[in-house]
């Protein structure tokens, strides 16, 4: 146990040395998603309290914290997926490029078009691999010619580094792929509709180490074009891929809050909050 812990700190330091998100880039950082004093309720249960959170454009922001502290809940407020759960509401504000996504005149469907999501368990549609990708594209371009659609499907699959695995079996069901391939298919599905932000809720938690590595590499590729927010329980993963990290914790009343938000390097090397330090070094439950 101690061995692993020290290993994780070492790798964190290695990342820090590689030099990410240094102060020199701060000037051109553009805020993509911003949550201010966000409270979120499931019925009468307050799951989030006074959350302040920021995701910068073309950065990977990680959300970490113990189980049940509200990471998924927070992530799902960014594309209004919580609307699909009955009896939920929020207080405070979430903005996308400065626009309040919970304003009364905002269409949640439009929000989701711009903020895509990849889930913890790969959830390809029980259709062919091709149709998995084509579905989203056709939502917005119902009359796209076949040749263009083919090209877009291929581009999305290449973009998610899964083209080589599936190019010979596009007509086969997506559910017949391996877990890692399925998850990359789901990423391909998400990028096929060209969102601006991709939310990932523990995308590697059901995958083996090699698949995990592939997805991590992919994320780093993707941030050139997308803003990525990832929930993870894997400290090393957060340290390896993310530029910024938000640390969440549960209060006495089980409401989740963000106790620290900073550059990943800072969170993992010199956290300001004692609880963060305990958590990232594995001293926490």
């Amino acid at each position, binding site marked *: 146990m101690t061995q692993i812990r020290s290993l994780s700190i070492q790798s964190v330091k290695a990342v820090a040395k590689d030099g990410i998100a240094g102060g020199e880039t701060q000037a051109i950082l553009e805020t993509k998603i911003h949550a201010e004093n966000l409270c979120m309720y499931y019925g009468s249960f307050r799951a989030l309290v006074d959350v302040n959170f920021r995701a910068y454009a073309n950065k990977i922001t990680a959300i970490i914290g113990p189980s049940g502290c509200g990471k998924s809940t927070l992530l799902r407020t960014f*594309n209004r*997926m919580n609307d*699909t759960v*009955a*009896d939920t509401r929020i207080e405070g504000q979430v903005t996308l490029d400065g626009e309040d996504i919970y304003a009364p005149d905002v269409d949640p*469907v*439009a929000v*989701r*078009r*711009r903020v*895509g*999501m990849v*889930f913890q*368990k790969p*959830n*390809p*549609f*029980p259709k062919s691999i091709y149709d998995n990708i084509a*579905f*989203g594209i056709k*939502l*917005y371009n119902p009359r796209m010619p076949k040749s263009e659609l083919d090209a877009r499907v291929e581009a999305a699959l290449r973009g998610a580094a899964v083209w080589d695995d599936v190019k010979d079996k596009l007509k086969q069901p997506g559910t017949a792929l391996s877990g890692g391939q399925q998850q990359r298919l*789901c990423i391909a*599905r*998400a990028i096929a*509709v060209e*969102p601006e932000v991709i939310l990932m809720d523990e995308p590697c938690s059901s995958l083996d180490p090699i698949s995990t590595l592939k997805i991590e590499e992919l994320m780093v590729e993707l941030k050139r074009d997308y803003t990525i927010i990832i929930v993870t329980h894997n400290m090393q993963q957060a340290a390896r891929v993310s530029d910024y990290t938000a640390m969440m914790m549960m209060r006495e009343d089980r409401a989740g809050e963000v106790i620290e938000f900073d550059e990943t390097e800072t969170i993992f090397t010199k956290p300001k909050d004692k609880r963060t330090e305990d958590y990232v070094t594995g001293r926490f439950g």
Partner: protein
Amino acid sequence: MAVSPSPFPQTLPAPPEIGADPSVRRRQRIGAIGQAGLFLSLVIALVALIVLLLDVVNKIGGMAVYGYRVDPLTIVPSIPLEELSQEELLQIARDFIPAERLDELPDELGMTLEELTTDDLIGVIYNEVPNPETITARPLDTLADQELVEVLDNNITDARFNQLNAEKPFESRSREELIELIEEEVLLESVVKTWPLLASLFNRQAIEEEIQANYPGSEYGFHWWLTPEFIISDLTTRPETTGVRTAIIGSVLVIFFTILFAVPVGIAAGIYLEEFAGKSRINTLIQTNIYNLSGVPSIIYGMLGLAIFVRALSEFTSGAAFGIPDPPPNGRTVISAALTMGLLILPLIIINTQEAIRAVPQSLRDGSLALGATKWQTVRHHVLPVAMPSILTGIILGISRAVGETAPLIVVGAAAFVTTDPSGLFSTFTVLPTQIYTWAKLPFDTFRNISAAAIVVLLVVVILFNLTAIIMRNRLRKSL
């Protein structure tokens, strides 16, 4: 779990040596008896149902004695008594007048029969002999072809006569054909006594002896009630010639329009409740209401149909409002039946659709919504295709229920005697189950025979439907 563990300390004093403890042996013996009892229950249930099916099958065929409803001698031409000689008339008088009357007659008349004139003799015969004209009747098989046609002409309606002639001109029919026609049309050849199928198969000898003892000289043989002709024939008043075509067409029509109404509405309501309905008051009300409706006796639906569709909306359900020529006097029509039946199976289809939709994993919906698909797009492209086989299973069960449902249609359609095939929404109709009911109500064996034959037709359809649904559902369960 709410079960209290309290029974254990009292009933299970953990024995040290299992084999040796007499209380354990006793408990095991009770266990064995109990098991036998439980098994027996299952056997009783299954046996009762097997007996039920056998009872039906037992009546679809069997040994039968044939007879004529009409005495053949009363329809054939006879030789007028006036054309007979005195000798022949005397012979008739001696043969047909009861013996004691023969003794009394000379006293009454004041002279012996031999002393009477021919005319008086004829008068006496007319007075004393029942059905005197049959005495000199000429048996059917002694008649010439032309005479046979005349017999036919005299005993059936002109319309029927012309119809038969049109089917095949009488001149071109053979003697045998003509006699057969007379037997069917005029003499109403009928089954006077029947035996069950099983007895007829395994005990034919005894039955034949019984027939020869009780029905000497009668024709008899093995008679099937469930025949292809039975399925394609018109409804008539005679069990020997009737058929269920009109009822089958009525059933098919009613079910067709029931499906047309109930399936889309049922699926739509199921989708609404599972996917779109929030937790508002009205939605909770709809949901509770559907569960309650599913337990309402079917005859109540019949009363609803009678008061609303048949009576209140008769202007529409009889087709009068749509300019149908010759509309029926009230709304006892196919459309009223279909709407009633539709309302009856709606709760079934809705509840089943809801269960099917609920079984679709949420992750599929999330995946679609996260791409920016609308709710309906998600339902249409991802939820429905996955839920469809299961929804279909429920629909098949619903249809099968509608096929066999009798009470509401008795109330709505009345057990009418309908001999013309229904042709559309505004036709009066009869359906297979009400036909079965009408026949089963009559306390005559032969009507029970055709009732059983119609039941077999109904059961084949219903069981096929249910079997399909059950197999489909079990497949689905396994694949999940």
